[in-house]
């Protein structure tokens, strides 16, 4: 068996048996003898001063083992980069759901009862619920002590921001933008908005923390255990080597589980009681108090020459960061995928201004391709509007403007990645774009481009006497098939049957690992798996794995370890073509068919890849049509999965995925990342198809029947209400 042969065969996932028999142990499934249950008192106000907290009645309830308030943890703040989120609030609460007190009790029921017995007196303050309000020169400053907050990872200071209610702000320019606009034959400007939406991993967060000697043990649903360890060490003032973070099986992440907020106070409760303390977040709390995708407002201006070629572009993007920036791990405290609009196109001069803003709303965080779905909805809708104004087809406008190798992109960097024109053409071909369609039907296109992640990790291999190989890694598998990817790269490289390679995840007691995220695992962990397998091959010196294993004595192993640093720049890309039918009497949109043409390089896990692409498509479809974590007076209205509408099996259209590849991805065997590639382009493709179908242009997500109907051109729109004959 040679490498490619193994990779061509569909994989049998390593976690297949345990996940189809109920044997897989997620964090909430772990038996922890003697564990207490935690519950929290949360603010009912978006902005208030805490006048007093009375815990006496809760403390006297039988079965209550500890009650903590903000006074007990004063000054401690948590966060992935900027630590601005209080472990428990001690002076002010900044969003509905902010925590004021915590209880540990013998059972969840007692903990809940105790929470109800804690009375908090608040003095309501006027909330900042709107980004423009928050950025007024005289707006109240939500974090007056912001300059003193800890900024993790020691690589420089927190970047300066123009307004104290900015979390992050950036202005990037390449080329002489003003001169380029002056030369433009025509200039177009449009504005778009997207709501908060939730990752909605169906497994709610869970954690258990206990103190064992001088060690703090943590089992968490966090998808980057080393990062959580470092955050806890900083917040709690403990040395990193005292904290050990481990995972159970992770039930979906989609970016959200990079932020943990419970483990910090669980530590205090565990210390106070001398017992393990656990919490399983209720889904209502998931939806209302954890870090959703940022709501955005994006204004785009683009100048084109007489042939419709882009000559200048600028964007102004505002992202509602909510009460805390803690959910963002990035150095600029932005959702980075939202900064550089018109990705994938030739843009000779561009200016991008982007900011995240403090408001008294639920804090925003990272979600599958952070910032990018907002950006791509705006950019790809904008392009369609420009094409219509110019009287050329949206497809033709894209063909004229997609970046070819070496072209300046919107970042100013030359394009390096797949053949974007070929992807568009293939999507158009497969949706049968030239076929005449009846009234009320239309097709829409969008391009999606996503960087291939970078970073470094270490993977070790141990070959035993039985001829099996154990790969050890610090990365978990939140569902993406990471462990099977490592298994198959090792097997392909060594020419062994994949079933002889198993993968073991180590806690933070093992070698440093960056965790899941940022389209990282295929290039970084896949690269490390390849390097480790090559190191083992070298060590075997021409012997086969079986021969080398036979020569081993009892208990002997051959061990190799490889650290790999993925640094190369690359992109995955896809083109969407979506066909919709719009009922012009109601505005209702039905997606009839979809094509996604993708270039993700060499395929490592065929079954898993298909799942990532199909799942990514429906993830984007939810954002396009349904999802809206709407707030009213700072309170999330959709507090359960009945109100927060996710796509069901009945909502998904026939989907065709076509692979085109130049085979030159920078990952192992020429692979590229796939997990965050497909979802960003779907909302724009649907919006573009809707306009093609009925002339209705929706500038705000989700694309509801009401919005479509309201935007119908006057001659099309019929009066609503009872029809009289």
């Amino acid at each position: 068996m040679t490498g490619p042969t193994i990779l061509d065969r569909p994989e049998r996932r390593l976690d297949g048996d345990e996940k189809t028999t109920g044997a897989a142990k997620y964090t909430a499934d772990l038996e922890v003898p003697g564990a207490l249950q935690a519950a929290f008192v949360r603010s009912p106000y978006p902005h208030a001063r805490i006048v007093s907290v009375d815990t006496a009645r809760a403390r006297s309830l039988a079965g209550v083992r500890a009650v903590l308030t903000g006074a007990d943890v004063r000054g401690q703040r948590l966060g992935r980069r900027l630590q601005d989120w209080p472990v428990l609030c001690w002076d002010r609460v900044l969003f509905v759901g902010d925590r004021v007190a915590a209880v540990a009790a013998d059972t969840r029921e007692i903990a809940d009862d105790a929470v109800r017995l804690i009375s908090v007196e608040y003095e309501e303050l006027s909330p900042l619920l709107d980004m423009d309000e928050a950025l007024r020169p005289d707006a109240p400053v939500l974090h007056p002590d912001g300059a003193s907050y800890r900024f993790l990872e020691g690589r420089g200071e927190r970047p300066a921001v123009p307004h104290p209610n900015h979390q992050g702000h950036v202005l990037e320019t390449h080329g002489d933008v003003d001169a380029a606009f002056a030369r433009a034959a025509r200039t177009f400007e449009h504005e778009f908005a997207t709501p908060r939406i939730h990752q909605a991993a169906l497994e709610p967060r869970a954690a258990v923390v206990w103190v064992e000697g001088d060690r703090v043990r943590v089992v968490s649903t966090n998808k980057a255990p080393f990062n959580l360890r470092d955050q806890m060490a900083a917040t709690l003032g403990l040395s990193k080597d005292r904290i050990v973070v481990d995972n159970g099986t992770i039930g979906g992440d989609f970016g959200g589980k990079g932020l943990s907020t419970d483990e910090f106070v669980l530590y205090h409760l565990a210390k106070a009681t001398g017992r393990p303390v656990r919490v399983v977040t209720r889904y209502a709390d998931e939806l209302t108090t954890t870090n959703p995708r940022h709501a955005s407002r994006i204004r785009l201006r683009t100048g084109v020459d007489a042939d419709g070629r882009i000559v200048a572009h600028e964007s102004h993007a505002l992202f509602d960061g909510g009460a805390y920036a803690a959910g963002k791990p990035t150095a600029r405290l932005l959702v980075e995928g939202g900064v550089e609009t018109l990705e994938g196109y030739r843009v000779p001069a561009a200016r991008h201004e982007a900011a995240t803003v403090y408001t008294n709303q639920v804090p925003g965080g990272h979600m599958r391709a952070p910032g990018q779905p907002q950006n791509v909805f705006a950019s790809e809708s904008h392009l369609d509007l420009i094409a219509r104004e110019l009287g050329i087809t949206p497809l033709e406008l894209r063909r004229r403007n997609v970046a070819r190798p070496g072209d300046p992109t919107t970042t100013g960097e030359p394009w390096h990645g797949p053949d974007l024109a070929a992807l568009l053409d293939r999507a158009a071909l497969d949706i049968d774009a030239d076929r005449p369609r009846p009234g009320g039907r239309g097709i829409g296109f969008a391009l999606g481009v996503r960087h291939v992640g970078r970073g470094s990790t270490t993977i070790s291999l141990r070959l035993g006497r039985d001829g099996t190989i154990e790969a050890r890694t610090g990365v978990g598998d939140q569902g993406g098939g990471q462990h099977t990817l490592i298994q198959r790269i090792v097997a392909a490289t060594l020419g062994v049957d994949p079933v002889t390679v198993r993968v073991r995840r180590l806690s933070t007691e093992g070698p440093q690992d960056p965790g899941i995220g940022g389209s990282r695992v295929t290039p970084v962990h896949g690269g490390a798996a390849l390097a480790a397998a090559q190191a083992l091959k070298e060590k075997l010196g021409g012997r086969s794995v079986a021969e080398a294993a036979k020569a081993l004595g009892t208990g002997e192993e051959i061990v190799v370890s490889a650290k790999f640093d993925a640094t190369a720049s690359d992109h995955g890309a896809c083109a969407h073509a979506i066909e919709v039918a719009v009922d012009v009497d109601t505005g209702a949109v039905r997606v009839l068919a979809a094509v996604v043409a993708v270039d993700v390089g060499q395929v490592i896990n065929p079954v898993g890849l298909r799942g990532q692409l199909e799942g990514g498509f429906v993830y984007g479809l939810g954002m396009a049509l349904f999802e809206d974590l709407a707030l009213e007076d700072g309170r999330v209205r959709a507090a359960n999965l009945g109100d927060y509408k996710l796509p069901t099996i009945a909502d998904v259209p026939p989907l065709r995925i076509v692979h085109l590849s130049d085979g030159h991805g920078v990952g192992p065997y020429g692979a590229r990342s796939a997990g965050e590639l497909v979802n960003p382009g779907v909302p724009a493709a649907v919006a573009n198809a809707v306009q093609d179908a009925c002339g209705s242009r929706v500038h705000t997500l989700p694309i509801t029947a009401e919005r479509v109907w309201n935007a119908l051109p006057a001659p099309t729109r019929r009066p609503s209400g009872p029809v009289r004959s």
Partner: protein
Amino acid sequence: MTQHRIRFTLNGAAVDLTVPAERLLVDLLRDDLGKTGTKDGCSVGVCGLCTVQVDGAPMSACLLLATQIDGAAIRTVEGLASPLQEAFISEGGFQCGICTSGQLMAADALLRVKPKATDAEIRDWQMGNLCRCTGYYGIERAIFKARDER
């Protein structure tokens, strides 16, 4: 709170115990009986993670009181032995796996009473089981495959 004696079978084995009146079936299964293959997701009967079979019918264990299953035959994923399981693996019917027990128990309940269920009937039936990973395509393929290979 009042205590109630309940007797039922769990995956074929007799169970006889006393539960508080407000004990939910999902908590009874997971916390008292250690059957953690049944998951608790939304807790309001929408997501389908906690789907178990009660006398063959798929039910949300988060909406049932333990007292309501007195006399019933309960089946959880731990008691499942179906071609659906292998089909979910080969067709990409799961990724994170948190919804898988519920998907399997729902699909199995359908195929037991309707082995030749149509594609449309299968889609209709599985509507109460959310999945955030797969986009449902792999789940459909898996259930179709298990049906077709019967």
